[in-house]
């Protein structure tokens, strides 16, 4: 058994060496060391880190949503409302993420005065199993289950998951990009995401391609359509738990005397044309609209149905489901310039 012993010893030693290395690089900004700038994939951890310093100067507006909203510029909302917005939209965001984020935000200071919530079939779906991005984030999953029993066991499990995810090629890739960005600051454009201090997320590579005229939306659409076929093929109905999470969130925000805006997020018209007839998308989108109407019947919220993406510029998108910052700014203008929102008391003077 000498061979096996040496094999296992080597495996443990190599694993530890690897783990310490990527932990020190900390490419997703979720651990203590900050030797190099983080490169973000799951932006929950980074936004959790960015929010407290932002909130110290006062955070009076909050943007919640999925990756479809990460490029909604807080500065545009600031201008429109006079508030100070933080964009807390997260990748693969589901309504339980929104609830967890809001509860955590409430532990960091006064309640925001306006919360803008983006929903769509994905964020309310019943087809994707456990929310692993939330589960592996001990802070947010803890905020969601703040009163549940067995918290210490779950915390241990969450921490284990957090460290386990370091052992993946994606994590290693992020670590290498982080080091590259630190060594060659000009390589920053190679990074896929950069999160600004107000939570606004930029795509340096895509933005650089767009400004140089090499960004090809048609190619992007062609490449993502099969994935969206699979994605929406697996969404047949809304999740009761996620509907409940949305209602709980709205009730908690309203209880904090804050105002709520809910909007239905769209897909690119080409995407809808492709998946509309082959997946349950249309039916599930209709269920989302019904749910938003239902929420508005029970709570004083302003709602906007932008589920039809053809109402916006067809070229200001990154891919099948993600508008760029121009279209998202337009969404913000249409919502916050609307009498529905303006009619109530002026912002900041509740």
């Amino acid at each position, binding site marked *: *058994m*000498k*061979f*096996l012993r*040496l*094999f*296992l010893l*080597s*495996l443990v030693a*190599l*694993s530890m060496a*690897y783990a310490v290395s990527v932990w020190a690089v900390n490419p997703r900004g979720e651990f203590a060391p900050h030797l190099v700038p983080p490169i973000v994939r799951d932006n929950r951890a980074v936004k959790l880190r960015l929010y407290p310093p932002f909130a110290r100067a006062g955070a009076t507006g909050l943007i919640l949503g999925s990756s479809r909203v990460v490029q909604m510029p807080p500065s545009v909302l600031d201008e429109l409302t006079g508030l100070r917005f933080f964009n807390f939209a997260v990748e693969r965001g589901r309504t339980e993420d929104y609830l967890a984020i809001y509860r955590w935000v409430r532990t960091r200071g006064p309640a925001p005065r306006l919360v803008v919530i983006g929903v769509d079939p994905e964020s309310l779906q019943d087809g994707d199993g456990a929310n692993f991005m939330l589960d592996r984030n001990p802070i947010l999953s803890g905020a969601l289950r703040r009163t549940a029993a067995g918290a210490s066991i779950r915390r241990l499990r969450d921490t284990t998951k957090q460290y*386990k*995810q370091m*052992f*993946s*090629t994606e994590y*290693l890739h992020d670590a290498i990009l982080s080091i590259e960005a630190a060594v060659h600051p000009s390589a920053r454009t190679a990074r896929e995401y950069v999160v600004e201090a107000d939570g606004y997320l930029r795509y340096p590579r895509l933005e650089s391609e767009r400004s140089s005229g090499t960004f090809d939306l048609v190619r992007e659409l*062609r*490449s993502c359509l*099969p*994935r969206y*076929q*699979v994605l929406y*093929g697996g969404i047949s109905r809304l999740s009761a738990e996620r509907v409940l999470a949305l209602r709980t969130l709205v009730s908690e925000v309203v209880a904090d005397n804050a105002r709520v805006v809910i909007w239905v997020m769209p897909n690119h018209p080409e995407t809808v044309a492709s998946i509309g007839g082959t997946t349950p998308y249309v039916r599930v989108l209709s269920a989302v609209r019904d749910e938003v109407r239902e929420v508005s019947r029970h709570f004083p919220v302003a709602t906007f149905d932008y589920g039809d993406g053809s109402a916006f510029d067809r070229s200001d998108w990154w891919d099948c489901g993600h508008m760029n910052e121009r279209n998202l700014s337009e969404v913000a203008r249409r919502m916050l310039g609307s009498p529905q929102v303006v009619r109530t008391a002026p912002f900041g003077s509740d």
Partner: protein
Amino acid sequence: MVFNSDVFLFAFLPVVFALFWAARTKLQRYVVLTVSGYVFYGYWDWRFCFLLLFSTIVSFSAGLRISRSARPSRRRAWMVGAISVDLFLLGLFKYYNFFADTARHLTGTTALPVLHVVLPIGISFYTFHTISYVIDVWDRRVKATSNPLEYLTYVSLFSQLVAGPIVRFRQIENDLEQIDRSPSEENIARGIGFFLVGLLKKVVIADGIARHLDVALLSPNAFSTIDAWVAAFGYTFQLYFDFSGYSDMAIGLGLLFGIHIPQNFNAPYRADGIADFWRRWHISLSSWLRDYLYIRLGGNRKGTIRTYVNLMVTMLLGGLWHGANWTFVVWGAYHGGLLAAGRALSPGGRLPVLIRRGGTFLLAVVGWVFFRSTDLHMAGQWLARMFVWRGGTETSITLIARVLVAAAYAWLIPETWDMWFGLRLRWAPVYAAAGLAIYLVLNGRESVFLYYQF
């Protein structure tokens, strides 16, 4: 539970390995392997453990009865009875609904109701294990074991239980008899080596192709000719690396417990004829079909026409063994026809070996279209796109690159059995580094082996 899951790698395997080598006597080790086999199997659905146990008891008892009986008619009756029970269970769980559905389509009758049963995982494999044992005892090729634990260990051995290889009792009888021997450094080192190569084939190559291919195959009607061929090549290599990877892992696991599981693949895409392909692909199944079906039907001893009929019947049943779907029947008929044609015409006998290999490979690729398709309609669409020109391509460069890498591996790198494995201590850290690197790819991407569905 699958070999590439965290629960297997970090819980099941270490615990079973430690318990096995901590045990000293045969009895203890039989118990450890049997219990672990049932835990492994029951992890998927514990209720089917009873089916496995029932099938084991029937074949074990029949083996004893056959060996203790002097009268040929009684021996034969026990053999036929045990096989009938096994085939009844297999038929009920795997084929009943298929035949009921087919009867309904053909006759419009609903006399045969559709049953809501789940296919017990691995039933095709362990049924063939038990049938081979009963026939071998009846044929006096193997002496029936009187030790029920030894037999339980054979049938429930977790390394081969769910997706093969189809190991015959006589192939591992000596290892089971000497299960109480000390561990061999060579077996451990080779076992780790085989397991890692298998994991690499599955996780890096097969799953790497599958991630792109599965999406593309959602709409084969949208294929251009290039897309259709790339998809066919992609599946050809995905299936090979998935199943041969699984087989390598099973062999490696066997070695870790001192059990020598026989070779299941021998570079099949380097075959220079369809008959040669079947001597290299899923060897444990093809040799099982040859020994227990083709030869029993008369093989090539009853004239030319009968030989072709026997080949066709064997391959049709071999196809159907893979699943209750007409696509598998057509796939089996296709290979039966190729084998018969190969026998009748000896095509390419005088052609250079590279052309024979290329031709055999392309014939296999076309066959896999039926094997992969969910129904004959899909197969028809896919084949039409392959053979009726349609321009353009939607295939990603990544998929093409992965297929090319897989092709290079399949054609240029030695089969795992022919690989050189460093067995000295100094190689242990190299194996550890390889294991860590493969795990980085695997983590968070557990996937089931393709042959689990059979």
